[in-house]
């Protein structure tokens, strides 16, 4: 690109940015207040759409001029729907778990009468003298938000919002550099692939750049399918232009003219928002031919995958785009040399692409200053399971697991009558492992997590407490992987099925004494023998649970006892007569099989023959009685008091 073209690019973009800033000032910083409502899938599921309508209607009814703006996800799933209200004379204030009724109250109190209703406030977004600010909450203060920075702040369906917040600055800056310089910046930043494998991103770009073919492709892998992981979805739904910008920079750097955004069709909102983003970028000349008046061309197509987990594996993903069965092939050659339709193809995960614009804008050194020696920048985790403040968390690499679980996410929720103990973190999804308490100080980075047998994976983090059976956890993940195996290679197709069958036997109390050793041997062979990453990592949940919780396996096999009282075939429910409140019948009504009957003194008891162990009675028994307990092995349950025949 010659100097004249470079100047033209800068001028063209400056004109667009000017318009964007004007629009931003009108909607966010003008005289009318604005209300931001989180409308990613998590917010919508919690009722954000109804809240959105309620705000609009209440404002119309009160004749209040206000901008009601849909935004993405701030990551605080536990508090959805989230609403930010900004008035011209005060700091923006965040409200959680907002209902349509609250919306009416907030319009009246906050917008009309100037009362912030402190009892409903989650926090103010900036420090002030009146309300506690987010800086006082570990969930906000200890996070390092790089790629989630604008999530929940901008309208994901409005390109001008993104541009007003510095969006596409990175791409325009990249266009002022030679492609090799861009690759060098990414290489020096130390960014590694956040899809799980952690391959150095700059190196991959360089290999693809050096491919001699004239035609090259860039693919953004958004085929997120791990149970418990939703970080890619939230990011696409909250800030699709960030990804688009990352892809544009990657395409410019490697010299690709077209690309695919591979996203599963089970993410309809993500698909829609990405398509909108692409259309808007095309309309203002940021995508397509002669981008911003230069000779650079690139176009992006959204490709909807059909929901096969294995299509997240890059060679299977490519096969899927080509219209074939999504089955991985042997590597090498890697897609960076021989990829889509035989052309050099750069494939990066959503979170990797999302980091690229920030790296180009802020510089390699700034990014490299965050994180640990071998893992730079931040990691995004979707924290779920037995955790108080579930949601998306972005922390600097090197943050200890303990801090994420107990400080940022608020620890383990209390049970009905007592606190529950932490047991393990399942990290990295079906490819990851279970990390027990003694490794809670492990810093989160690519290498440290491998030591206890887990891996970064694609960002799922499921917290388990004392009520979770580790054999059942392993069985659950193996059930998933063996269903999602493409079926191509022997070790994965049959091996994972064997693991599952053995684990099922153990959870049913029919495991054999030699099964634990067999699971370990078979797991090792599958790791060494399977064709692709899915198969090679599938045994990790089995290996780590055996390594750290072998006693649970042994109890299942030798004593038919499930120590966590989770495996249905090995437990029995019992109503403690001394605790049962005679006049309360709530358990009777909850039982789907009429297994609960009335014994002497109107005490309730369970007929073990009829009981299907659904736990419904245990859930409804009021906490002040807490009369229902579980026994394992099942045959240790005390005999129930005799049934009293009801008088005619």
């Amino acid at each position, binding site marked *: 690109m010659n100097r004249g073209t470079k100047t033209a690019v800068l001028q063209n973009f400056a004109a667009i940015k000017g318009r964007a800033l004007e629009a931003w000032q009108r909607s966010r910083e003008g005289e009318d207040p604005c209300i931001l409502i989180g409308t990613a899938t998590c917010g919508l599921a919690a009722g954000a759409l109804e809240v959105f309508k309620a705000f609009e209607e209440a404002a119309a009814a009160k004749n209040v001029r206000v901008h009601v703006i849909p935004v993405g996800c701030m990551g605080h799933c536990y508090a959805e729907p989230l609403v930010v209200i900004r008035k011209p004379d005060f700091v923006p204030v965040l409200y959680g778990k907002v209902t349509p009724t609250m919306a009416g109250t907030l319009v009246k109190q906050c917008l009309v009468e100037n009362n912030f209703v402190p009892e409903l406030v989650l926090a103010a977004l900036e420090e002030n003298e009146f309300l506690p600010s987010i800086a006082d909450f570990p969930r906000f203060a200890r996070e390092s938000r790089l790629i989630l920075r604008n999530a929940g702040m901008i309208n994901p369906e409005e390109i001008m919002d993104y541009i007003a917040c510095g969006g596409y600055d990175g791409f325009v800056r990249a266009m002022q550099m030679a492609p090799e310089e861009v690759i060098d910046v990414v290489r020096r930043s130390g960014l590694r692939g956040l899809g799980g494998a952690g391959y150095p991103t700059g190196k991959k770009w360089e290999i693809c750049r050096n491919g001699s073919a004239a035609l090259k492709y860039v693919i953004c892998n958004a085929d997120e399918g791990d149970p418990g992981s939703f970080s890619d979805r939230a990011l696409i739904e909250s800030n699709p232009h960030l990804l688009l910008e990352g892809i544009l920079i990657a395409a410019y750097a490697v010299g690709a003219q077209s690309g695919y955004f591979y996203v599963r069709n089970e993410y309809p909102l993500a698909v829609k928002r990405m398509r909108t983003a692409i259309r808007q970028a095309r309309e203002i000349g940021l995508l397509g031919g002669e981008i911003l008046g230069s000779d650079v061309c690139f176009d992006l197509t959204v490709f909807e995958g059909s929901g096969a987990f294995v299509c997240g594996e890059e060679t299977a993903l490519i096969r899927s785009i080509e219209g074939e069965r999504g089955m991985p092939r042997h590597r090498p050659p890697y897609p960076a040399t021989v990829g889509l339709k035989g052309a050099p193809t750069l494939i990066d995960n959503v979170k990797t692409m999302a980091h690229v614009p920030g790296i180009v804008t802020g510089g390699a050194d700034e990014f490299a200053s965050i994180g640990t020696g071998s893992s730079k920048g931040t990691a995004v985790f979707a924290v779920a399971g037995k955790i108080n403040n579930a949601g998306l968390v972005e922390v600097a690499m090197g943050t200890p697991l303990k801090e994420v679980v107990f400080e940022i996410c608020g620890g383990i929720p209390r049970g009905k009558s007592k606190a529950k103990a932490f047991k393990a973190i399942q990290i990295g999804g079906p490819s990851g492992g279970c990390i027990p308490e003694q490794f809670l100080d492990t810093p989160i980075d690519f290498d440290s997590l491998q030591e206890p047998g887990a891996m970064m994976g694609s960002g799922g983090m499921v917290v388990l407490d004392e009520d979770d059976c580790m054999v059942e956890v392993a069985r659950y993940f193996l059930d998933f992987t063996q*269903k999602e*195996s493409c079926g191509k290679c022997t070790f994965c197709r049959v091996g994972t099925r064997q693991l599952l069958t053995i684990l099922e036997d153990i959870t049913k109390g029919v495991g054999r004494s030699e099964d634990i050793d067999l699971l370990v041997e078979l797991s090792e062979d599958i790791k060494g023998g399977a*064709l692709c990453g899915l198969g090679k990592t599938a045994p990790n949940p089995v290996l780590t649970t055996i390594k750290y919780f072998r006693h649970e396996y042994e109890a299942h096999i030798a004593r038919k006892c499930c120590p966590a009282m989770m495996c249905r075939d090995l437990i029995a429910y019992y109503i403690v007569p001394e605790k049962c409140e005679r006049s309360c019948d709530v358990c009777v009504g909850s039982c789907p099989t009429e297994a609960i009957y009335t014994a002497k003194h109107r005490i309730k008891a369970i007929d073990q023959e009829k009981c299907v162990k659904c736990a419904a009675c245990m859930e409804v028994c009021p906490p002040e009685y807490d009369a229902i307990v579980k026994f394992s092995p099942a045959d240790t349950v005390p005999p129930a008091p005799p049934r009293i025949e009801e008088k005619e």
Partner: protein
Amino acid sequence: MKTITLTIDEKTVEATEGEMLLWVALDNDIYIPNLCALKARPLPDANCRLCWVDIEGRSAPVTACNEPVYNGMVVKTGTERVVRLQQTALELILSTHPVDCGRCGKNKRCELQKIARHLRTKLKQKRLRDISKRLPIDSSHSLFSYDPNKCVLCGRCIWVCKEEQKVGTLHFAYRGFAMVVTAFGGAPLGEADCTMCGRCVEVCPVGSLIFKNAEK
């Protein structure tokens, strides 16, 4: 094409550079267990996971079907870890495969028997669970019958049907353990679009696809 020399199990052999190791070994009468390999296939499928070898300088065993040979390559086909992977792969296949050789039309010509003999192991395995599928046998075709239970899913039949004969009657369907070879829509093979070339039966390494006149 450059001729190079390599060593397989202490035996020095000559080969063309870039040829796949499995074929070089087999051409030189060094047996490496295999099920899915077809010489004509440009991209080896590497799905059966049986042709393990150790190559000097590599940290773990690799499959010979997709390893191009180079000058000075040193290969060992019978190391402990190679045999362990081969043994497990065979056991996994046999845990789904009805072992009823006496009544099988492929008896004494079956690749599984050959591999078991090579590994000095029995066909009736006990270490793993028996997870055979018990699917119905398809004898609707006039020329051959198809027993999906005996199928090892090597994909040879699919490849010859589609790529060699350019017919494309056979496909994989479903995934994971449920994967089967079938005609479009699961139609009985007798009703499928077939040119009667019989190539699928010829390349089947086991007794899954078998000519009717060869059945016992």
